[in-house]
């Protein structure tokens, strides 16, 4: 029962990663790409949890901590950079808006 559930959860998390990669590629604004990268790192943590249940080892818990830490610091670094450079954020957003309309 557990192995079937693990396979199903693997497929669900891979679908989540695929959806967020699609949003990462076509997101109209730079902020959408930051959000999509956040979800990719979260689903990577989820996949590591499933691997740790399948192999029954507690050694991957530190790797989960490091992965979520890196995703959080990536988001904070991007937001800080874009907040201190408002011209760059405005330029990237406006170019994309012109493409959409």
């Amino acid at each position, binding site marked *: 029962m557990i192995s079937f559930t693990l396979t199903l959860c693997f497929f669900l998390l891979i679908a989540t990663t695929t959806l967020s990669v699609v949003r990462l590629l076509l997101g109209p604004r730079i*902020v959408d790409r930051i959000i999509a990268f956040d979800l990719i790192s979260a689903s990577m943590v*989820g996949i590591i949890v499933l691997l740790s249940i399948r192999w029954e080892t507690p050694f991957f818990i530190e790797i989960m901590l490091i992965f979520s830490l890196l995703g959080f610091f990536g988001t904070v670094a991007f937001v800080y950079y874009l907040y201190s450079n408002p011209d760059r954020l405005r330029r990237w957003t406006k170019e994309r808006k012109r493409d959409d309309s």
Partner: protein
Amino acid sequence: MIRELLICVFLLFGSLLMLLAGVGLIRFSDTLGRAHALAKASTCGICSLLIGLWISLTDQASALNILLVITFILLTFPISGHLVAFLMYHHEKRDENSKDE
């Protein structure tokens, strides 16, 4: 038997919530809506997956590590969602101010 059932329920609930975050990331039309969908659903999903791992691993020392990871994720994921919404809100407010002038 009950332990296996609990593990399966927590894993399925967590990965379905992660898939819900991915669907929300694709389907919503607004950046603030996407940030809103992702911050709630991915926090709850990752915590549910980690509780499943906690039930699955039997030794006591790894439970503390998992508790550390859960606390860290509960602290950082809402903060990153809030930062992205903060950036988007200030960007739109700044644009409106420049239009008024």
